[in-house]
């Protein structure tokens, strides 16, 4: 059993271009599994996976759970409310207790940056980061890459702009690492108060105005603007945010080319993105969600030691 990705998937920053490409290529055969009548292959039969979601999540949690179940793993979901965490148990104690029950993998979503690293350093099981604070959300970055590759066929040289609250966004960080490693030209656009001070050192271009970004980009990845940002004083109002930085149909129509629209969800319609854009023809937002399951199947499969060249066979069953 070769471990092509190492023990854990904590972020896209530590991955090589080859490793990212491997995950995307491995996801291709798994896409088809979800299209079948009977959506199940035995690749992870007998493996036990714990989904440790300490932060609210619908899309990511369910996507992981489907990915696990479609690979025939046994899964358990743990949330913070109603669990020992609510009784004050520390993260490390929770993890050690789970491991004492002889599990194989942990998928963790946590509000603290570095929580997945913390866990990975302390337990033997594979750890998959499903979003840690404002650090990384690697499987989101991967599904965004897969969606872009589906649409453009190749990634090299494409121009993608990430729009919005980059400062607090784990999706933005994973996108920046993943896209730049795959040879995509990356830009960010948002109010300066919501961009990291040293954003230029990430090797990305910065657009001050959304119209310039749209003019430049072939695809926009529009980030969710969290309502807390206004209360914390980063921006004056959601209304003005929409007027200055919102991705609207009028703005897109002014561009001389088509721009692909992505959004990691959940959307604030009428704030960072207008409904007619989100639901429009250039939107691939639901394709992202579909690809999320395939990418997560690929990550689970590879971390479990599955051979990438056998992924095609694996989806047909080990008997084949």
């Amino acid at each position, binding site marked *: 059993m070769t471990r092509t990705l190492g023990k854990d998937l904590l972020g896209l*920053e530590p991955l090589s271009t080859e490793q990212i490409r491997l995950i995307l290529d491995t996801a291709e055969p798994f896409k088809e599994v979800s299209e079948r009548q009977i959506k199940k292959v035995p690749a992870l039969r007998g493996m036990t996976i714990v989904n440790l979601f300490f932060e609210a999540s619908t899309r990511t949690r369910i996507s992981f759970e489907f990915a696990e179940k479609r690979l025939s793993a046994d899964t358990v979901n743990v949330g913070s409310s109603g669990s020992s965490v609510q009784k004050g148990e*520390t*993260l*490390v104690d929770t993890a050690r207790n789970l491991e004492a029950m002889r599990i194989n993998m942990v998928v963790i979503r*946590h509000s*603290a*940056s*570095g*929580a997945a*690293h*913390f866990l990975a*350093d302390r337990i033997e099981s594979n750890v998959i980061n499903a979003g*840690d*604070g*404002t*650090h*990384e959300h690697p499987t989101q970055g991967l599904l965004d890459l897969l969606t872009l590759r589906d649409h453009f066929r190749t990634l090299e040289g494409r121009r993608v702009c990430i729009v919005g609250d980059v400062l607090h966004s*784990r999706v933005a*960080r994973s996108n920046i690492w993943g896209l730049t490693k795959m040879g995509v030209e990356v830009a960010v656009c948002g109010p300066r108060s919501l961009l*990291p*001070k*040293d*954003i230029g*050192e*990430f090797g990305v271009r910065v657009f001050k105005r959304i119209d310039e970004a749209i003019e430049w980009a072939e695809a926009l990845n529009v980030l969710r603007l969290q309502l807390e940002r206004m209360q914390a004083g980063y921006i004056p109002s959601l209304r003005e945010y929409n007027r200055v930085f919102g991705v609207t149909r009028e703005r897109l129509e002014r561009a001389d080319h088509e721009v692909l629209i992505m959004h990691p969800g959940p959307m604030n319609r009428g704030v960072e993105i207008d409904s007619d854009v989100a639901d429009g023809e250039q939107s691939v937002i639901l394709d992202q969600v579909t690809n999320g399951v395939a990418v997560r199947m690929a990550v689970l499969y590879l971390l479990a030691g599955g051979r990438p060249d056998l992924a095609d066979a694996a989806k047909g069953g080990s008997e084949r």
Partner: protein
Amino acid sequence: MTARAPSGAASRDVLLRGGRILDPSQGIDETGDVLLRNGVVEAHGRSLGTPDDADVIDCGGAIIAPGFIDVHCHLREPGREDVETIATGARAAAAGGFTAVCAMPNTEPVTDNQAAVGFILRQAMRAGAARVYPIGAISLGQRGEQMAEFGEMVGAGAVAVSDDGKPVASAHLMRTALEYAQSFGIPVIDHCEEPTLASGGAMNEGIVSARLGVKGIPAEAEEVMVARDILLARLTGGHVHLAHMSTRGSVELIRWGKAQGVSVTAEVTPHHLTLTENACEGYDTHAKMNPPLRTAEDLEALRDGVRDGTIDVIATDHAPHHYDAKEREFADAPFGIVGLETALGVLLTDLVHTGIIDLPVLVDRLACAPARLFHLPGGSLARGTPAHVTVFDPNLEWSVDPAAFVSKGRNTPYADRLLRGRAIVTIVDGQVIHRFEG
């Protein structure tokens, strides 16, 4: 305001034989003996005779220096005796070569009155290790509102005032403290941090924090307050002492203040002189401190500041925490590391043996300057000064083993570091309070 009982006439003479006597306060750097009698330095020179009944300590290959004084440490008692006590802290200090430490007032309850000051001195006397000089709070409960009673606290033995850990947000309070403190001849120490800029931050704001997704504390959060404090010292004529400086801008501002003749002094920690924000990679909570570790550029400026005297003092900011407190998510872990037992080794290894600063400068910043600025006994080996002496072997190699610390704290980023240089004898009032048994 003695932290220990006077040694009395009954104590035996101590002869420190054949060491390199290094006393920047007198410009002395020579090989010879030092004789301590009745709690004071009796004589130093080449080949002093051995008095009858004297304890003779062979100092061959070692350096005999005025006792080190750490003007910034947290001993946690009263309140968090599970983490450190005055006794364990004072013994850890002795083990690290410190003959005295100044204890910050952020205990539970806060050291903001004469009774609290007296308690610290009493506990220190019982411990019989390094001397402990209490620092009183600037404001009651360190709440930044009403001034504490400086006069009574100084009368009870406090040597300075500070709201350390809680920056003095109100410029008016800082101004008043700088004025009022002049009646008692004590420095006002400030932890320079503009609270609204630093709020929620856990490390230096820069490319590393941006990558890790950790909220940053910009250098300017410190510098804004350094500038304010220097201007307020100019306004009032008071002595402001700036704790644990961490940025290049701060060094430049202090240099400017000193050139203007403002009564501003400053300290830096061994960790800000030897580590950068990169130590936070992998979310290592032992690299989480406040002020945060900064960039290589800041580190260079701080080293320059120590070399040219812009930074007067090296202080540890010894901050013990329970093991569990650091064993958690980066954002939730407390700030601070222990430093009493690693300071000398780290400074010798990374700054002196590498030729960045020379030994007399190191001894001045650790011993002479603290005594001078805080008006404390010691800081010199001149005849008749209290016999607070540190003997250290600059070449003794050892590896940092937190489990072997005298301090209750184990939280250090230097675990397993191989260091060269270590205190071997620590003497307070002519009595050996620590001896390293290699």
